[in-house]
């Protein structure tokens, strides 16, 4: 049984624990430096190719969107986004599963391996412990993604050539979508971490499973006859988030959260039944 108070306390501890840990500090530094990468790349491109007219940049961007997503409506919708902000979103989604796993692989497995969970097991339900830990990891990831995105916004605005309104409106939207996507992968990390008693096994099996999901999503999605199966994979919902129809976006958000929620429920079932 879940208790909001217990979940809140566990989540709070998980956030503080991560912020104070070497791993947490290293992650923040990496995310900050990661935010500088697009700006540096832009500077280097300018140096090599000189100033490219805005029209050329826009046409190239639209060409990319058309090739990637096809539909005219979606291309028109996305073409108003600053390219750097959009590519940041795509890059975030690409590395998000691995990053979430790197932060959250030991959240449960580590406590079971060292039996630290025994100190809290009699004080909070195991469902609250799992949910609180997942929520805490989600919070940490949300902060890390925000650090990354905010760094890119600031640098991008400082470099000029971008409308502040476009950067902030599209940036905020895509930041929220990234955090929503992270929710699903946090659930996945919780599930992996609950299955294994050894954190490193949870990390490697989780990474392997994540790669398999990505691969299967690509292969099955290629063939019209098997495309429907890809709905079981969270990667499938990414496209829904950038749809011009707000209802489709909401459905995408809901599917990501549902996927993450199901994984956390699975993790709870495993931890509740297992001997600790």
């Amino acid at each position, binding site marked *: *049984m879940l*208790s909001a108070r*217990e979940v809140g*306390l*566990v989540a709070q*501890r998980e956030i*503080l*624990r991560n912020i*104070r*840990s070497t791993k947490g500090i290293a992650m923040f530094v990496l995310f900050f430096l990661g935010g500088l990468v697009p700006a540096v790349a832009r500077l280097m491109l300018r140096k090599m190719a000189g100033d490219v007219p805005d029209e050329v940049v826009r046409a190239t961007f639209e060409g990319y969107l058309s090739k990637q997503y096809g539909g005219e409506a979606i291309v028109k919708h996305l073409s108003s986004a600053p390219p750097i902000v959009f590519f940041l979103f795509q890059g975030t989604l690409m590395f998000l599963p691995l990053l979430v796993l790197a932060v959250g692989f030991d959240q449960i497995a580590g406590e079971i391996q*060292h*039996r*630290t*969970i*025994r*100190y*809290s*097991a*009699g*004080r*909070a*339900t*195991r469902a609250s412990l799992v949910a609180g830990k997942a929520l805490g990891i989600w919070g940490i990831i949300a902060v890390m993604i925000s650090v990354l995105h905010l760094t890119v916004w600031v640098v991008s605005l400082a470099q000029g050539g971008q409308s502040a309104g476009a950067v902030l409106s599209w940036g905020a939207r895509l930041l929220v979508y990234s955090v929503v996507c992270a929710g699903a992968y946090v659930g996945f990390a919780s599930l992996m971490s609950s299955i294994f008693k050894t954190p490193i096994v949870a990390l490697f099996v989780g990474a392997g499973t994540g790669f398999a999901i990505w691969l299967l999503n690509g292969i099955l999605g290629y063939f019209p006859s098997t495309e429907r199966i890809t709905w079981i994979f969270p990667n499938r919902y990414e496209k829904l988030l950038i749809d011009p129809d707000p209802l489709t976006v909401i459905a995408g958000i809901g599917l990501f959260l549902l996927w993450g929620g199901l994984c956390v429920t699975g993790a709870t079932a495993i931890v509740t*039944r297992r*001997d*600790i």
Partner: protein
Amino acid sequence: MSEQETPAEEPKSKSKPKTKIDRSGPPAIDLKGVIKRFGAVAAVNDVTFEVPMGSVFGLIGPNGAGKTTTFSMLAGYLAPTSGEIYVLDRSPDAVAELKGKVGVLPQDALLPANERVGDFLVYLARLQGMDAPSARRGAEQVLADVGGADWWSTRCGTLSHGMAKRVGLGAALLGEPQVVLLDEPTAGLDPRVAYEVRQLVKSRRGRCTLVISSHNLQELEEICDHAAILDRGQLITSGTMAELTASSSEVRFELARGPVPEEEMRGVEGVKTVEWDKASRELSVTFDRAVCDAEEMIRRGTYILYQNNARISGISKGRGLEQRVMELTE
């Protein structure tokens, strides 16, 4: 008067109220036909016993006896394969009902290495339902009780084994729980710290029900008033400490310099053997329990010693817990 008959010592901590224990009520802990299997191996096999409310109860047995498995089931860490366990009339996994009422010192659970002692204790206190100011006060109090008032800002990972054990003990005592489960509370501690921990545990007598699992039989005999002896997963016997130790058919008379009426003692009705140990100046008398009990044998023995002008330094009945356990778990 033996140790277990000695009235409970006054608790050292004066800031905590003494909880009145109702010994007439239901048992604090009740196990009925409990079995725990790991694959084909039954680590605990059909164990049934009760822990009286307010008692200091020892779980005794050699390695592999099933002590820690039984302990872990009481704490809710392991689910029994079959049988029933009730802690304060609830299943041990009823966390919502039992939180704050049961404190546990697990044997081999590591404290979170990167967290500070104070923060961790406050977190645990809050998790068991205390508000923030009470949690802080409670954490400071238990840390002071275990002699670790200076460790508040110390990272758990830098604590020595003994310090970590005491922090764990402090965590178990947070919030004045009604039942405290301690698994090997003095294992690996140096004699001085072990003594301090024993004193702390003794100070809790009468304030809660204590269940202590330990290899240290002298320690258990000193602290506990009830015990269960396990061997190879099965309950051998359980009862009060007086019952367990006095049920052996032996009385020991320690004599000061002077006559030792060994032969006269052999003539007493019911006596089976009489042994005189010169080094310890102890006259050990074993007797037929069907003829008389330990108290009667003490009466008869002291009468013979008195008649023969022997000077008695001390009398003890039974062989002590250690000897009793050795006999029962061979």
